[in-house]
């Protein structure tokens, strides 16, 4: 059975290797096509046609990769995905300089191509920063920011308190929900039965998707659904916090030691009792530590959410920034920076104390 395992994993490795090589090939090929044919904007917008072309290159790349695998030539995919024991054996061979190996050429080409495309895409133009007029305009702005208008300080303080509470409520509502979910999302708790595994898998998928939706997007959704303001911001943060707390918590659950679980199970304890007495004591401290960190992160996020209608100091910042009132903006930035710094220090202290 040990050998059967190796066969299975190297089958998976071969598949991944092929896919990887195929995508790298298609990427380089598309780049070559763009450089050679210099397509017009209109042509670039034909998503369907371009995607088919990419797909065709992927297929060609996959075929190439399989051929190369048969000839035992090491591709970049092989270097990444081949199982360790295969790599081990090839260590007796002479070490070729990287640029003389296929995988080395693949790697260098991909890095160079990506960097070139990156320059073009971001329209990097350092000279722009040095144009006298632009430069002095920016300096004036910095100057105004650096002399904050403290008249609005009282309002800024009130608003940042609102932000802190938005973050607090989002965390507080998310914690109990994520706590329960974390056990349902842990493989070692759920993996033993088919139904359990189904629940585990479904929840994982749902939360992986919802975590990949940034809180700013949630805030946009909720500022339309609810009204523009702190409530919308809090809802957005709550959704995001549940997803990320549940994920992180469940990872703690998955890394607990089996010994205590076995010890409690051996007494004839039921499932809930086993989780409560053997798993929970092992995860409380990391849970608290991560939760404090989450609250701290949520304060920072809540600030940003204000920009899209999430209430708190962010909304205030957006208003003054829209009117180009830089001294007022400077004051708000000062308040935010102070609070974030305090929260950061506080959360670091709590986490250090818990360990």
């Amino acid at each position, binding site marked *: 059975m040990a050998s059967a395992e190796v066969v299975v994993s190297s089958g998976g490795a071969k598949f991944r290797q092929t896919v990887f090589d195929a995508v790298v090939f298609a990427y380089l090929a598309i780049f070559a096509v763009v450089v050679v044919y210099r397509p017009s904007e209109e042509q670039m917008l034909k998503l369907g046609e371009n995607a088919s072309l990419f797909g065709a290159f992927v297929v060609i790349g996959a075929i190439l990769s399989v051929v190369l695998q048969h000839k035992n030539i090491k591709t970049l995919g092989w270097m990444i995905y081949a199982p360790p024991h295969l790599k081990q054996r090839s260590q007796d061979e002479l070490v070729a300089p990287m640029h003389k190996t296929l995988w080395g050429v693949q790697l260098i080409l991909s890095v160079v191509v990506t960097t070139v495309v990156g320059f073009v895409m971001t329209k990097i133009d350092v000279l722009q920063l040095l144009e006298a007029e632009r430069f002095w305009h920016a300096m004036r702005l910095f100057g105004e920011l650096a002399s904050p208008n403290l008249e609005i300080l009282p309002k800024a303080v009130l608003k940042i308190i609102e932000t802190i509470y938005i973050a607090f409520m989002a965390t507080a509502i998310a914690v109990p929900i994520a706590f329960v979910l974390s056990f349902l999302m842990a493989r070692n708790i759920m993996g033993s039965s088919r139904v359990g595994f189904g629940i585990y898998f479904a929840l994982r998928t749902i939360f992986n998707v919802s975590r990949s939706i940034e809180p700013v997007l949630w805030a946009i959704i909720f500022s339309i659904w609810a009204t523009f303001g702190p409530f919308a911001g809090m809802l957005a943060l709550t959704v995001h916090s549940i997803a990320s707390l549940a994920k992180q918590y469940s990872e703690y659950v998955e890394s607990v030691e089996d010994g205590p679980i076995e010890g409690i199970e*051996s007494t004839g304890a039921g499932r809930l009792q086993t989780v409560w007495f053997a798993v929970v004591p092992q995860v409380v401290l990391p849970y608290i530590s991560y939760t404090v960190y989450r609250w701290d992160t949520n304060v920072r996020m809540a600030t940003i959410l204000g920009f899209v209608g999430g209430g708190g100091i962010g909304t205030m910042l957006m208003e003054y920034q829209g009117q180009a009132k830089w001294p007022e903006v400077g004051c708000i930035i000062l308040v935010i920076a102070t609070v974030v710094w305090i929260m950061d220090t506080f959360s670091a202290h709590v986490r250090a104390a818990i360990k």
Partner: protein
Amino acid sequence: MSASAKDSQSRSGQAIGQHILQVRNLQKTYPNGTRALRGVSFDVKRGEFLVVIGLSGSGKSTMLRCLNRLHHPTGGEVLYTDRQGQQLDLAKCQGDEILEVRRRIGMIFQHFNLIPRHSVLENVLYGSLGRTSSLKSILGMYSAEDQAKAMNFLKLVGIGEKAHFRAAQLSGGQQQRVAIARALTQSPDILLADEPVASLDPATCHVVMDYLKKVNQELGLTIICNLHFLSLVRQYATRVIALKGGELVYEGSPADIDEAWFSRIYGEGAKEVHIN
């Protein structure tokens, strides 16, 4: 049954009664395909101190866990006869019946498997989880009877004064005694011990083994114990079985394990290590 079993019975000087377990053709194949048990059969009598020996990987731990259903056997029978003479096949139990099997068969482990952050007394009380509802146990509402029982067993293993220490603050030997007290609180009919002294120093090791012996003789609890050191086997076992590659290769009195048996169980060229 065999002459050697009768020997050990007379030598231990205590009444060893009827069968408590009759294990028949017990098999366990793990999901990854490992055949850890390939059809093991043996009997256990009420009140015995049965020791299981064998090389690492021979299937000792697997076998114990198949008896109390921490693992689920993939074949064979484990016929259990309770004090009233009722017979039950533990290998066939399903769902909540499995919890009942575990409740009746206590177990202690090489690494004690306590909850290190909880107090010694709480750990011992966890022995009563099987008969306490989830809600009550989570709220810490154990019956007065269970609390008295827990404290009693803690005193029995000689660490009553440590009741309110955290388990993690105790030495290895003391933790194993807490584990024994926890298992006793279950009021089990059989006690399994999976290398209970393998992570203890030689002196502590005897202390723990002596408590197991005390439990065996004074409470009449049947014990099935995995051990590594033959000197301990000779000192504590009333009967010995040996596993090799998932099969039973020896069954008899500890005194009868001679050179020939030794090399059959542990392989040619193996040497006995003495621990005192």
